[in-house]
C-alpha cells in the first residue's frame, strides 16, 4: 500500500512542473479580484504558452509562480512544493530552480553582458572563481546567440535583441528546471520577435526535461512554439489544451482572440 502511494507520489512529482489550485488575488482587501480562482497544471518538459488579452492577470499569475506575490486564497506548487508554506530564506534557495527572462530584460545597468550572465553563478556558487564563472557565463551567452565581441558591453550599449540574449543567458546560468518568459516579444519588430521565438524553442529543446512557461499575447508564437496553451480571461482560465484545440473552439472569446491574432499575422 505504502509502495503504491510512493509510486503515485512519484508520478505526481514528475507529471507537472507547476500546479495551481483555486488561486485568487486581490490588492484591495478582497473587494476586487485580479485572479478569480485559477486552476492550472503545467506539464513538465513542455513549452506552455499563457495567453490572453491585456489586463487578464498574466503577469500577476507569473509573480505567484515565482513567489514574488502571496495568494489571497489558493495554492501554488512548483516542482511539487507549496510556495506559500516556504519561509523567505527557503524560497530564496528554491528559486535557483527557476530562471526568468523579463519583459525588458531587467539587466543590471552597471554590469557588462558577461557580468550579468555570471552574476547568479557568483552569488550561488561562491566557491567558484571569477574566471570559472565567466567561462560558464560566456558559454551561456554563446548558447543564447550573443557574439563574444559583445561580452564587455554595458546594457546601455546593446540593442534590444542583444539584451534579450543576455537576459536569457542570465536566466540559464544556473541550469534551472523551469524557465519563465515574461512577454518576451513585447515591443519588438517582427524579425526580432521571430528571433526570440526561435531562441525560446531552441533553448527548450537543447535542455532535456526542462519546462518553459511563456507569458505572451502573441498568438502566432503560441501556435508556432507552444506544446500546451492556456488562455486567461478576466482572472480565470478560459481554456487550456493543445494549440489546435484553440483553432477549433466554439467559444466566441477564443474565436475573437484567434481571429484577431491570425489577422494580425496575415
Amino acid at each position, binding site marked *: 500500500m505504502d509502495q503504491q502511494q510512493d509510486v503515485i507520489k512519484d508520478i505526481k512529482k514528475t507529471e507537472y512542473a507547476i500546479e495551481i489550485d483555486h488561486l485568487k488575488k486581490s490588492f484591495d482587501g478582497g473587494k476586487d479580484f485580479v485572479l478569480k480562482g485559477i486552476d492550472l497544471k503545467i506539464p513538465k518538459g513542455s513549452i506552455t504558452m499563457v495567453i490572453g488579452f491585456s489586463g487578464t492577470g498574466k503577469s500577476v499569475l507569473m509573480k505567484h509562480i*515565482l513567489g*514574488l506575490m502571496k495568494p489571497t486564497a489558493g495554492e501554488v506548487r512548483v516542482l511539487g512544493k507549496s510556495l506559500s508554506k516556504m519561509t523567505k530564506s527557503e524560497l*530564496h*534557495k*528554491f*528559486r*535557483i530552480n*527557476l530562471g*526568468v527572462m*523579463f*519583459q*525588458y530584460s*531587467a*539587466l*543590471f*545597468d552597471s554590469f557588462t553582458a558577461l557580468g550579468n550572465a555570471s*552574476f*547568479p553563478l557568483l*552569488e*550561488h556558487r*561562491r566557491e567558484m572563481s571569477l574566471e570559472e564563472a565567466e567561462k560558464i557565463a560566456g558559454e551561456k551567452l554563446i548558447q543564447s546567440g550573443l557574439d563574444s565581441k559583445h561580452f564587455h558591453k554595458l546594457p546601455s550599449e546593446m540593442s534590444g535583441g542583444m539584451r534579450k540574449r543576455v537576459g536569457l543567458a*542570465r536566466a540559464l546560468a544556473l541550469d534551472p528546471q523551469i524557465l519563465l518568459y515574461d512577454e518576451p516579444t513585447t515591443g519588438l519588430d517582427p524579425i526580432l520577435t521571430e528571433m526570440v521565438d526561435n531562441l525560446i524553442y531552441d533553448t527548450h529543446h537543447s535542455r532535456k526535461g526542462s519546462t518553459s512557461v511563456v507569458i505572451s499575447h502573441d498568438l502566432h508564437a503560441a501556435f508556432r512554439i507552444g506544446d500546451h496553451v492556456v488562455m486567461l480571461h478576466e482572472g480565470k482560465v478560459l481554456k487550456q489544451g493543445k494549440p489546435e484545440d484553440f483553432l477549433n473552439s466554439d467559444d466566441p472569446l477564443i474565436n475573437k482572440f484567434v481571429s484577431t491574432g491570425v489577422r494580425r499575422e496575415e
Partner: protein
Amino acid sequence: MASTSAIESIDSFFSAFIKKKLIGPIEAAGKFFIFAQKAIASIFAKPFRGSEIIQHLEFVGNQSIGIILLTGAFTGLALSFQIWIGFSLLGASDLVGPTVALAITREIGPVLTGLVIAARAGGAMAAQLGTMRVSEQIDALEVMGVEPIQYLVGPRVLAAVLATPLLCALFDFIAMAASYMLSVHFLGLDEGVYWERIQLWVDPSYVYEGLIKTAIFGLFFGLFCTFRGFTASGGARGVGEATNRGVVVSMVMVIVLDYFVSNFIRFYYLIT
C-alpha cells in the same frame, strides 16, 4: 431621508480623512521601521558584501571630498569673518578662534556635512534603487535567489554610517584651516593666541560629539533614501518623487535629529 444621506456623506468624508491623514502616515512609518530593521540586520547577515561596501564607501566618501572641501573652506572663512566683525566691536577678537572652533565642531560641521551628503549621496541612492525597482532589476535579484535588501541596501547604509563622520572630520579640519588662514594672515590676529584659546576652550569630546551625530545622520539618510527608492513605483515619475521625498525628508531630519541628539549627548555627559 435627506439628513440620513448627509450623515452618511459626512461619515464617509471623515473616514476617508482619518484614513488619509492619520492611518496613512502611521502605516508608512511602520513600513519604514520594518524596512530599517531588515536593513540593519542585513549588514550582519551572510554573505559578507565586502566589495559592495568598498564600492559604496568610495561613492559616498571619496567622491564627496571635493564638495566637502569647498563647503568647509568657505564656511570657515565666512564664519570667522562675521565673528571677527562682531567681536572686534567688543574688543574680544582673541575669541574668534575658539568661537569658530566650537561652532564648527559641535554644530555647523556635522549639520552641513549631513545636509550636503544627504543631498548628494542620499539622492543618488534613492534614484538608483528607484530605477532598479521600476525596471524590474530588484525583482530579477529576488528571482535569482538574492536577498535584495542584503545586496542593495545593507552596503549603502553601512557606507553612509562610516563615511559621513570621516567627511565631517574633513569638514572640521578644512574649516578650521580656512579660519586660521583668514584670522591670522589677513585679519591680523596673533597666531599663538589663536591656537592657545582654542586649546583652552575646545575639548576633544566636542569633536567626537559631532562625529557621533554625523554617523546618526548617515544612518538616517541611508535608511530613508534607500527605503524611498526601494519602494518606488510608477515609472520615471515615481523615481523622481522617491528621490525628491528622500532628499527633502533626510535634510529636514538632519536638522531635527541634530537638536535631539545634541540634547541626548549632553544628558549622557550629565549622568556619567
